[in-house]
């Protein structure tokens, strides 16, 4: 929804796979409930990464890339620009790697984000940052952080608003109600 170019397909995918259950592995100290999340919003054909990376030599050095150039060019996440391996796992590109060395799947990328964005992560787990759909007292579908934030350039993108309400009609209505005009529902009747 937030990355407009992929919208229609991704939305369909969400619907089709909305109820795939993905169990958080969790660490010993942290008790995570089971979150229902839509699948990661990969671009078509990019996953599994190992299709290319399995046979590639790993080059740990930050450098100008000849592949994934869009990502490298638009990369904008935190003041001290990061390198890919802050998040990606050099040894198996199909999973992400946490700072402590733990590996997590892309279905659990929220754990990666949660390392550096603790408060937001806590709010997200409570259903307050980000969004839930489904049942308020039953099954809930969460959204991954990356469904709303591009991990490489996470600032939330502006979108087009839907049309404003009809003004002329409003004025017409208010004539009926005794000539009162309000600027908005909270305005004084003038």
């Amino acid at each position, binding site marked *: *929804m*937030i990355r407009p170019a992929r919208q229609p397909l991704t939305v369909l995918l969400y619907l089709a796979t909305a109820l795939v259950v993905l169990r958080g592995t969790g660490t010993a100290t942290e008790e995570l409930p089971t979150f229902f999340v839509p699948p990661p919003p990969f671009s078509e054909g990019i996953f599994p990464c190992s299709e290319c990376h399995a046979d590639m030599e790993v080059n740990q050095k930050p450098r100008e890339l000849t592949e994934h150039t869009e990502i490298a060019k638009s990369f904008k996440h935190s003041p001290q620009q990061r390198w890919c391996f802050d998040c990606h796992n050099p040894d198996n590109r199909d999973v992400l790697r946490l700072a402590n060395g733990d590996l997590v799947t892309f279905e659990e990328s929220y754990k990666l984000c949660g390392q550096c964005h603790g408060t937001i992560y806590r*709010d997200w787990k*409570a*259903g*307050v*940052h*980000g*969004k*839930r*759909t*489904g*049942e*308020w*007292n*039953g*099954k809930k579908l969460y*959204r991954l952080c990356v469904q*709303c934030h591009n991990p490489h350039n996470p600032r*939330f993108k*502006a*979108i*087009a*608003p*839907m*049309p*404003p*309400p*009809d*003004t002329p*009609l409003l004025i017409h*209505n208010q004539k*009926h*109600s005794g000539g009162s005009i*309000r*600027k*908005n*529902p*909270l*305005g*004084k009747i003038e």
Partner: protein
Amino acid sequence: MNANNTDDKLEKTFTRRGFIKGTAASAAVLAIPVGSTDASVWQSFFQNNFHEMSPEELQDTIHNLAKKYREKYQADFTIKTNGPRPDTLFGYGLDLSRCIGCRRCVYACVRENNQSRDPQIHWISVLQLKKGEKGVSDLENANMYYAPDEVPEDGYFYMPVQCQQCENPPCVKVCPAKATWKEKDGIVVIDYNWCIGCRFCMAACPYGARHFNWGEPRIPKEELVTETHYLGNRPRYRGVVEKCTFCIQRVRDTPGRYPACVEVCPVGARKFGNLLDPKSEIRYCLEHKRVFRLKEELNTSPKFFYFFAT
């Protein structure tokens, strides 16, 4: 609070009974459906106020309504009448630090709740406010007609306003027909077949949240939502008042679904749940965020909470 509620309820039941016998009946005389031979017209004229009906009467009423809707819209409607569930008091939270003013909620609400497209009725209005000192205090002059290419616009934040589901609703107090009341789960509802269109409730509402059908409501046939609740999104009539019900037709299901506006919000600014459940996300908001309510000084005690998460 509980004990209070019960007293309140008892008292209301008594006064209402007396009132209806006296006043509403005579007011209704004006609108007797003279000339109509259709039994169902008469039946609905003498129909009791929704929450006074026996189960049999209720079934009859629903049956007749569905029949009339079928004639009018050539569509089969489901009209639910399920009541409040126990131990439930609905509350709503809106995170103003996330809302970007995109109005997706406005139109999802129109669609889900069968609001008239022309004349246009919107249960949700989104106000655009300047960031800074005055902020939330200058509500009266906020603009709701903004239309830039993209939102959010720099220097502004956005505040959607809809029925605040007051615990102490002024609209209910002024209704001479007792056609609007607060349910046990906290939702303020309207019986559209009992509303006489006097619009006192609109004048009494400090939030401009009630809307009047000046004309015959019009909805494109292919956009009709036929899964309805009697007190919620069933089609309305010219001359009656309507407003947000927290999507009563969704939230009272078992299990209960989120309101349409919550589900459509692309930034996840809208939160909904049971205020009596300490594990609900709405309780989390109340306990972890600094929340405020609109026009707190009026003592309407809304169950609609605004907050800034960051």
